[in-house]
């Protein structure tokens, strides 16, 4: 055993006593090693025989540290009780692989442990210890940095956010032919302050519009904030209570500044848990206003008669996936079902369900850790089987991480199913006065653009962010393209060789190998020198001087890429660019 600890290992060991509270200490001490938790975990069920996925085994990685540094017996006779400290950076990497890559903190094992050992909570603590010494997946570091520096975990700039709200407001006014429909921003003394997941602003703004329509027709006095509008909180995933507290405080400050009477949190499992349950603890402040999930708000509007709904407008068979954060950490299981029964005509239960439901595999920040995607998708077999058994055509979930996780599984396991959120179904089921309904079809992008412009084209999407891949895939597939997506440059090279795409979209900042290196490799390779490349990046030169792409191609005397688009992605811009490059410009304009 090495005597000298690495700098990081020493810092981690020093941090342990500060992170262990009484609940965690008891969870670490109470495990009887009975093994009953093993098959409660979706990772174990999908990887039979691999003990490293077993919750007790994963918990023991942390317990060994606890025994070595805090427990008497571990100090007295370490080998006898299995105490073991960490000494090297390699050992920290192994711990990282376990606590980030083999557990989504879904808490299913915690609720099924006869001893009440809360494995998920001390797995989060282990993540926090590693984050403290800078050991974490690249994606986690990236997202946490955005949330610290920009104020939201997707790096959406305030101008882009406000522009999106304005865009959605215009859409609603056209859709309902009503110039009075507004998305109020920073309105003081509102009854409702509505917060969202930045994924909505960046990739799924329609959910904002749906919520706005519901608030409008319910006659709600509501507002959104120009600050503190992101209720998601990566502190829950990376175990950093300081980040958790700072992010939650931004939301609380915004509510208090505008003197709003209630905080309503859009459909996001971890966002709700972070903002409503954990946030006050992290931020060390008691909330001066009530907070609730938008599911409760919508349900109350229907019950109070403030909006009318017609369930026949959602005739497809629908099932409900319980988000782990809602069901196992916030006790929200019945209200979404009650709401679904009101707005859908064919609801089918999934088994097991509620607190016993299996994880979507996208929780715990898993969607930001592309290096673990193959594991995640493999472990999703359990969920895929659950989904398939329902026979439903739509799986509804009240969580954005679940939306992405389920979307990936549906595609991977080729299930004939779509993922939706409750807000979409409620908005669709709303019955409005005839005068409020305009002739203009609701989705402008679809209305002005003939479908399937990219029919027959094969497009390779290279981006480490699953949300971006999902979004681009949806845009291209909707237009008839065949899409292959990969999370890193190494896989991109293999995909180019194997799939022979007609065009590639390429992110620049990715783990392991950056996009500019791949571009250089392609332009050097006579086989791929003519492959059209559209760079899609969120990084401008000043923010990422190491990735100054324009200078890079000048210095290397490389040809310009066929397209260069900055995030946030505007579907029209991407489609126009891609269609033009592929010689489809005339079709687009038609």
């Amino acid at each position, binding site marked *: 055993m090495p005597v000298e600890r690495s700098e990081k290992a020493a810092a981690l060991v020093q941090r342990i006593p500060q992170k262990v509270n009484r609940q965690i200490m008891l969870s670490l001490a109470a495990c009887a090693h009975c093994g009953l938790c093993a098959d409660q975990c979706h990772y174990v069920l999908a990887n039979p*025989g691999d003990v490293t996925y077993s919750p007790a085994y994963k918990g023991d990685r942390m317990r060994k540290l606890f025994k070595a540094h805090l427990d008497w017996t571990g100090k007295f006779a370490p080998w006898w009780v299995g105490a073991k400290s960490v000494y090297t950076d390699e050992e920290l990497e192994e711990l990282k692989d376990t606590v980030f890559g083999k557990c989504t903190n879904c808490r299913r094992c915690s609720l099924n442990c*006869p001893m*009440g050992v809360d494995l998920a909570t001390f797995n989060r603590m282990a993540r926090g210890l590693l984050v403290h010494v800078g050991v974490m997946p690249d994606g986690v570091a990236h997202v946490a940095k955005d949330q610290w520096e920009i104020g939201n975990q997707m790096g959406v700039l305030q101008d882009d956010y406000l522009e999106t709200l304005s865009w959605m407001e215009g859409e609603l006014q056209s859709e309902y032919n009503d110039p009075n429909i507004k998305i109020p921003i920073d309105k003081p003394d509102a009854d409702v302050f509505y917060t969202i997941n930045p994924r909505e602003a960046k990739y799924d703004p329609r959910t904002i519009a749906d919520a706005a329509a519901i608030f409008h027709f319910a006659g709600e006095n509501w507002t959104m904030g120009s600050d503190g509008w992101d209720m998601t909180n990566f502190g829950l995933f990376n175990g950093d209570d300081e980040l958790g507290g700072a992010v939650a405080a931004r939301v609380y400050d915004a509510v208090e500044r505008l003197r709003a009477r209630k905080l309503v949190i859009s459909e996001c499992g971890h966002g709700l848990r972070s903002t409503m349950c954990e946030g006050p603890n992290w931020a060390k402040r008691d909330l001066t206003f009530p907070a609730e999930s938008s599911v409760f708000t919508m349900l109350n509007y229907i019950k109070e008669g403030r909006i009318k709904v017609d369930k026949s407008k959602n005739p497809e068979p629908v099932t409900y996936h319980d988000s782990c954060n809602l069901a196992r950490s916030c*006790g929200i299981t019945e209200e979404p079902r009650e709401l679904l029964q009101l707005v859908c005509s064919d609801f089918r239960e999934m088994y097991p369900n509620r607190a016993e439901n299996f994880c979507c595999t996208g929780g715990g920040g898993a969607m930001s850790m592309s290096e673990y995607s193959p594991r995640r998708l493999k472990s999703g077999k359990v969920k895929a089987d659950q989904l398939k058994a329902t026979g439903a055509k739509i799986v509804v979930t009240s969580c954005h991480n679940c939306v992405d996780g389920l979307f990936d599984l549906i595609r991977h396991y080729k299930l004939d199913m779509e993922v939706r959120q409750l807000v979409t179904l409620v908005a669709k089921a709303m019955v409005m006065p005839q005068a409020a309904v305009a002739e203009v079809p609701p989705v402008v992008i679809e209305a002005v653009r003939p479908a399937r412009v990219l029919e027959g084209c094969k497009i390779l999407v290279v981006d480490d962010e699953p949300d971006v891949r999902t979004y681009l895939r949806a845009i291209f597939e909707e237009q008839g393209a065949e899409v292959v997506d990969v999370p890193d440059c190494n896989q991109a090279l293999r995909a180019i060789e194997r799939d022979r795409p007609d065009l590639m979209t390429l992110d620049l900042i990715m783990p392991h190998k950056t996009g500019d290196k791949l571009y250089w490799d392609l332009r050097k390779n006579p086989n791929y020198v003519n492959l059209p490349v559209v760079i899609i990046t969120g990084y401008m030169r000043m923010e990422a001087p190491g990735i100054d792409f324009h200078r890079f191609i000048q210095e290397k005397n490389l040809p310009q890429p066929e397209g260069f688009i900055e995030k946030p992605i505007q579907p029209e811009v991407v489609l126009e660019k891609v269609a033009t490059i592929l010689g489809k410009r005339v079709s687009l304009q038609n």
Partner: protein
Amino acid sequence: MYPTSPLLQFAENLLQIVALLFMATIYTLKIRWILRFPQGKDRQAPRGVSSGQQGAKTSLLAIAMPWTMSSTREHFLLYMQFVVFHVGVAGSIAMSFVIPYGPSLMRSAGIVKALQVLFLAAALVGLIRLVRRLGSTYMRSISSPDDYFSVCLLIVWLVFSALAAPNNPQAGEGSLLAYFFLTAFFLVYVPFSKISHYLYYPFARWYLGRTLGHRGVYPLVKGA
């Protein structure tokens, strides 16, 4: 009442008292140690029909309600083994007080037989648990020497419990001596071993239940 040897008298009385005092001292120190860790605070507003106290009660009773957890529901045989094993251990601990201080409570041959069956069944379960711990890759991966030793210790102790149950020194004091010396060793060893999970788990369950009850998770709603 037959006279017993000074060694057996020592093993039944003074040795047990010393061992118990030792265990109590260690547990007192351990509880002080537990209380040194700061208690997390639940600042969020209560939700649902439950409360922290109700949640804590639900959580504590979960161990006696195997239908509430899929782990115990799906592995009911393992759960029953757990029940037999722990009832056997509790019975044997109780017997270590009854023999020296209330032997009349075990005068009935029926009670003695019932206890012997219980102790042997518990020992058999212990053996099954040992085989499972040795045979399953999952169990081996989480087991330390203490895990193996603890279960072996309990198997042997339960067997001697069965032999000592008749409390018949005139037929030979060997089994009683072995039982009481093992009991004393057990009391001294427990605070340092995984067996002390029985001390920690009620607290772990109470804290988990308090939080989940406060948030409306406990009591769990069963699916249709």
